[in-house]
């Protein structure tokens, strides 16, 4: 090729610059929580494919007509599974994933699992996008719903409904069966995997995170402040803090920070039931009076010195960094980044993110999922499915969560000895904070059914990126409200 190659064109990460990194969210659609029609997987004809039989929305968990139930012994599957992941080449996630692969291969000597680290989330998206037209897709891969939406467009991903309900290798055989095969999964993690333009289950949760508010507990205790639970309480507290001259260096302190500009926007829409995006055209509904007023209010709060986001911070600094440096007293950030909110200087408290109605909270659920590709042979797909099950079984998902700060995807993970042992040993330092977050998300979020996701379609990642752009550009003063919203809509429309 030409000498332009010689001068090192940068990483394939740049392929999907417009693609947002984290999964989508928004107004939840049909919340088929724990229901899986346990249709017999044997005779495919009438039962499963009768999608149109009922007059309600088609059931995504219906076993597809062309699904062949697994017969024989699991040990007889001979296959090589190639798993493209984003766990990195080194570090905790990489080593743990390798351990799981090795343990799995010990259980199934006839199956080989190859983990291939593909960089970050944009990298893997572009790698798979290139692999699809050239027919070189792997067996399974880490993905986000936004990514899967476009893989689905190309007809490249496998509908996993059949595997879920399979009596031998599905969830129907092991785990809890009373309430349905997927009952052991944390229910809020399921809807996004069916929230696609086509009917079916095209991804399964791998590891999940959410957002929590971290606050300077020592300071709050000392000052006798109440932890705010609603937005109104939050702004009142900020005003109170800012006018408290007894706090050292108060002029340089911002009381409240929100790490992810896009999550801020999207979560607010969820909490107030304001339109954000939709699976059907017109897709982009976020330009409306409520949102404009909200962003204007955020700007007022920002200008008053109460509030900032990562997108409006100098140098795009993480709010967790500012929190640890005590220039922020409260920060909302991903639970996957919990350890960054830990510092020896003070105790970090954990609370729910501000809500509109604290009795029915809404908080976003994020984190990668797994999808399996159609191009693989049947044996390979079955082997990949088995590996997925192994990866996310109670012990392994509990172990993963305890090491990385992400959430387990199974409720039974919380009762495993790995988890309980870790919890009882997590008495100080970072571990204690991780434990607090884990307990907190379970009681305050999971049990209150607070998680939500947005529809995933061709432009959903652009919508998310543009939402972030609106917030940060208005807060920075780079654009006025009208321009920001118009530009964002324009950019989304261009994607189609």
């Amino acid at each position: 090729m030409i000498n332009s190659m010689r001068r090192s064109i940068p990483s394939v990460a740049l392929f999907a610059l417009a693609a947002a990194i984290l999964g989508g969210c928004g107004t939840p659609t049909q919340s088929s929580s724990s229901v899986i029609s346990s249709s017999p997987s044997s005779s495919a004809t009438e039962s499963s494919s009768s999608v149109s039989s009922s007059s309600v929305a088609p059931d995504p968990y219906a076993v597809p007509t062309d699904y062949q139930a697994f017969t024989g012994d699991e040990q007889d599957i001979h296959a090589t599974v190639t798993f493209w992941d984003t766990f990195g080449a080194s570090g905790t996630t990489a080593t743990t994933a390798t351990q799981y692969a090795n343990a799995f291969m010990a259980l199934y000597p006839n199956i080989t699992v190859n983990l291939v680290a593909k960089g970050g989330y944009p990298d893997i998206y572009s790698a798979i996008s290139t692999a699809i037209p050239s027919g070189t897709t792997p067996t399974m891969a880490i993905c986000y719903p936004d990514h899967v939406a476009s893989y689905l467009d190309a007809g490249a991903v496998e509908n996993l409904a059949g595997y879920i309900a399979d009596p031998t290798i599905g969830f129907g055989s092991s785990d809890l069966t009373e309430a349905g095969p997927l009952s052991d999964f944390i229910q809020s993690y399921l809807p996004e995997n069916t929230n696609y333009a086509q009917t079916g289950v095209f991804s399964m949760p791998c590891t999940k995170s959410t957002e929590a508010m971290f606050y300077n507990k020592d300071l709050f205790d000392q000052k006798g402040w109440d932890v705010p639970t609603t937005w109104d309480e939050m702004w009142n507290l900020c005003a109170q803090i800012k006018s408290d001259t007894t706090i050292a260096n108060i002029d340089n302190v911002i009381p409240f920070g929100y790490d992810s500009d896009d999550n801020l926007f999207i979560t607010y829409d969820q909490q107030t039931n304001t339109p954000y995006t939709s699976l059907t055209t017109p897709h982009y509904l976020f330009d409306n009076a409520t949102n404009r007023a909200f962003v204007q209010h955020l700007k007022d709060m920002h200008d008053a010195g109460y509030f900032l986001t990562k997108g409006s911070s100098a140098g795009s600094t993480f709010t967790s960094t500012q929190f640890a440096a005590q220039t922020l007293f409260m920060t909302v950030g991903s639970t996957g980044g919990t350890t960054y909110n830990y510092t020896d200087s003070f105790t970090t408290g954990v609370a729910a993110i501000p809500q509109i109605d604290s009795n029915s909270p809404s908080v976003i659920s994020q984190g990668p999922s797994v999808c399996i590709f159609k191009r693989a042979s049947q044996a390979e797909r079955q082997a990949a499915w088995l590996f997925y099950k192994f990866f996310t079984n109670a012990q392994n998902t509990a172990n993963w969560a305890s090491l990385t700060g992400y959430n387990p995807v199974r409720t039974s993970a919380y009762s495993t000895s790995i988890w309980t042992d870790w919890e009882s040993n997590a008495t100080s330092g970072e571990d204690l904070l991780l434990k607090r977050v884990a307990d907190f998300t379970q009681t305050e979020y999971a049990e209150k059914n607070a998680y939500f996701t947005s529809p995933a379609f061709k432009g959903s990642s652009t919508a998310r990126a543009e939402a972030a752009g609106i917030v940060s550009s208005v807060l920075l003063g780079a654009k006025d409200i009208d321009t920001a919203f118009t530009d964002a809509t324009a950019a989304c429309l261009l994607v189609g």
Partner: protein
Amino acid sequence: MIKKNNWKAWIYLSPVIILMAVFIFYPLFSTIGIAFLKDYNYLTQTSKGFTWENFGMVLGLVGKDAEGNSIWGFGQSIVNGVGVSYNTYVIRYAIPNTLIIVFVTVPISTVIALLISVGLNSIPWLKKSLQVIFFVPYVTNAIAVGMVFAVLFDYQGIINFVLNDMGHPWIDQGASQTRAMFALCVYIIWQALPFKILIFLSGLAGIDKQYYDAAKIDAASRWNTLTKITVPLLSPQILYVLITSFIGAFKEYTSVVGLIGGPGTSPGSKNMYTVVYYIYDTIGNNQVQYGAAAAVLLFIVILLFTAAQFWISKKRVYY
């Protein structure tokens, strides 16, 4: 003699021809073809027929409405989230930025390189070591050094430290396009110097000493020597440098990535786009047809520009 060599020449050229056909011409024609396809989806390799709209889209003359239809027209007209959206990124950012890079960095780096080479050529000591030093940027990785420059131009970096201007961003969030373009141009010029210095140095080595001796006898000033003797005699090299640099500047992309790390200085902004950056982005968005159209337009522009240079050179270059 001429005819006899025909087939032999083609045999000598056959490896080149085959490789180019497969890896350059075939993708090239495929890309040109894609530029004319409507709604090309490269994941499924399907499209909806022949159209000119991709070119229009790139130039901001075709827009999309909420239903996804393409409409010829001009000017943004979105009110309250409803309307037709035109791709203004290319017209507002990509084209102006690219033109700035072309017309600012190339002349400046060429002049600086010329001065350095002439300087190097006239010093008696340390010539070789300085030559080595000036060539070092050429052997490095563009992205890696871009990251280093990003650290230098950090809002709390060493450059602001020296200017006593800490906190004023050059390329980070909230940086104005002017400041970011300034940093970018500095980086590009820095990168471009070694190659030019090298070419000029070897060109200078080929200039006969007789000219300089004659000039000395004439008591010509240093300036006159430079402009009336050195530069004209160096004109073949200058032409070569200008042509290759202009082409490279039109295609500038890696420097933006290395330095800015993204298409803009604030999230969602695309104010640091260049034309090739835009092309690359379209690949990631499954909008390959727009990128293809932009690439075709870019190629035509570069071709015309280079042809113009050759035409001008006929009068100004002395062999």
